[in-house]
């Protein structure tokens, strides 16, 4: 329900998020709602974008930089009879630090013509920080996956050494570590090499 916008002007702004990554979209939507922006819509597909924007009539559009539909929004800079209100890019040349931050985070923002930038500033700041949070999360997830994979490789290589060389677990690990140090490689890489060789020599 629209209320007076004097105490919470953000609540009335219609924000459209276009992002093909569902998790990042959810993170951003949640952040915006927590910050008091209740009117958040999202699209995951770029199909018929102009039509959708015409229907939704957003004040602010946030779009990820991996989305080829950015060029569709660029067309709306032009006066187009397909759009009621022309849109403009949020950041201009005078605001280079923000452009750099947004590009670095992988997002871009557009606002309808005539909207005061101060009203939108917190939205863009929030978007940039949530995009970065998503990146960190993804990096941590990648690292966790790698660590798990590494551990499995080392376990398997140890098993091979214990069986073929009659070593105990500690000695098998020490041998792997020694080989890794001698070759200047990671233990997991030496383990992987050993497993591959073993598989080749088998039968």
């Amino acid at each position: 329900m629209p209320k007076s916008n004097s105490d919470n002007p953000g609540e009335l702004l219609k924000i459209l998020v276009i992002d093909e990554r569902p998790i990042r979209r959810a993170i951003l939507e949640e952040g915006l709602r927590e910050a008091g922006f209740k009117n958040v819509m999202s699209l995951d597909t770029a199909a018929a974008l102009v039509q959708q924007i015409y229907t939704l009539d957003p004040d602010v559009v946030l779009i990820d930089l991996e989305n080829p539909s950015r060029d569709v929004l660029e067309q709306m800079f032009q006066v187009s009879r397909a759009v009621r209100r022309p849109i403009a890019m949020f950041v201009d040349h005078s605001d280079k630090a923000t452009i750099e931050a947004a590009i670095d985070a992988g997002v871009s923002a557009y606002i309808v013509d005539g909207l005061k930038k101060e009203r939108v500033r917190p939205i863009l700041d929030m978007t940039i920080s949530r995009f970065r949070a998503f990146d960190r999360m993804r990096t941590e997830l990648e690292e966790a996956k790698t660590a798990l994979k590494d551990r499995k490789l080392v376990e398997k290589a140890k098993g091979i050494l214990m069986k073929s060389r009659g070593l105990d677990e500690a000695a098998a690990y020490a041998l792997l570590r020694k080989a890794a140090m001698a070759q200047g490689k990671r233990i997991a890489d030496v383990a992987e090499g050993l497993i591959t060789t073993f598989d080749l020599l088998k039968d």
Partner: protein
Amino acid sequence: MAEDTTERRVVDREVHAGFIPLVDCAPLVIASELGFDRQFGFTFHLHREVSWANIRDKLDVGVLDCAHMLAPMPIAATLGLGRATEPVIAPMSLSLNGNAITVSRALYTEMCARDVAAMGGDGMAAARAVAAVVRSRAGSGQEPLTLGMVYPFSCHNYDLRYWLASAGVDPDNDVNLVVIPPPLLSESLKAGRVDGFCVGQPWNSVSVAEGRGVIVATKNELWPMSPEKVLGVREAWADANGELLADIVRALTFACRWLDVPANRVAAAAILSRREYVNVSEDILLRPLTGRLDSGLAERPIVDEDAVVFHRDGANFPWRSHAVWIITQMIRWGQAREPFDIMALAERVYRPDIYRAAVDALGVTVPESDFKDEGKVASTSLPQASFFGGDEFDPAHALGYLKGVPIRAVTADIEAFAEYNP
């Protein structure tokens, strides 16, 4: 990433270059893959981008040092159209031609039904058939046609508009002109969201291969040897890295020369087809690269040796007359409204001086003049052919030319420019 606003001098000669997956990104890819960059003492790091807006913004903030750009983009950037950025210059052209106009099978059938004579002619004549369809739809109260292109500041946009206007169709009022990202074009054609489009290769050939489109005009039929892609660099970056820029221009010129040897086009297709480059099958890339295009009609194959030109006949020379023509189209269609000195802008953005100085010692033939007329027979020593079906363009009389074009946006104010362009 640039942290300050002062221009970075690239000391390590590691050059970050952006490109959009299109056949004509080949000069950057080939320079990097075949080592023309190392030959001139620098290393390209190529960045595949998904939108022209990304190219513009990343070049602006210095994430990219240079980029594969649509010929109008440096002019738009320097004028501050779309979004104001650092001024950008074009020290060389990367390719000529390469575009085509493709229509859906349904629209093709309708065009044949409305004007069979026009459909028996060339690519310019096909515009008359589209015009007949547009009139017939308007007369019977049907939805107007929706036609696509890929960026407002592109030759695709200007080519499509010119083509439509030549047959009396007002692109702003008689049809819906929309932007569609290239990878979505074929699907949009099938879904009926768009009836036709003007785009760079391989996307026309992709639509044909998928059985959804018919190529009705190639760029070479509209305007032979016409501007398409340029190398874009920030003006301030060029000033701070003059020697490096000269080496980049040399390496790209060598890559373009290699690309124009017909025997090399097959190898080029194999490289470009890779996932990190265009990511489209070799078979489809070979069509524009060998000039053997499937139009979508078995009885009408297109043989066009100039489907995309990378080097020969002065193709790398950044003609200031090309810049002037592009500016006239920006004015014609209401993109550039604040009046300015057209010639001064063309001279600031298109920099044949840099190109000449860079390739002087390489034995590359360079034209003496920075300008050439279009559409006039024997006006230069270069091969001449018709310019948009018999029009003439004299860069010294840009406003006179603009006054003579049949259709322009209502917002185009040619008189306002007269004061700055006596």
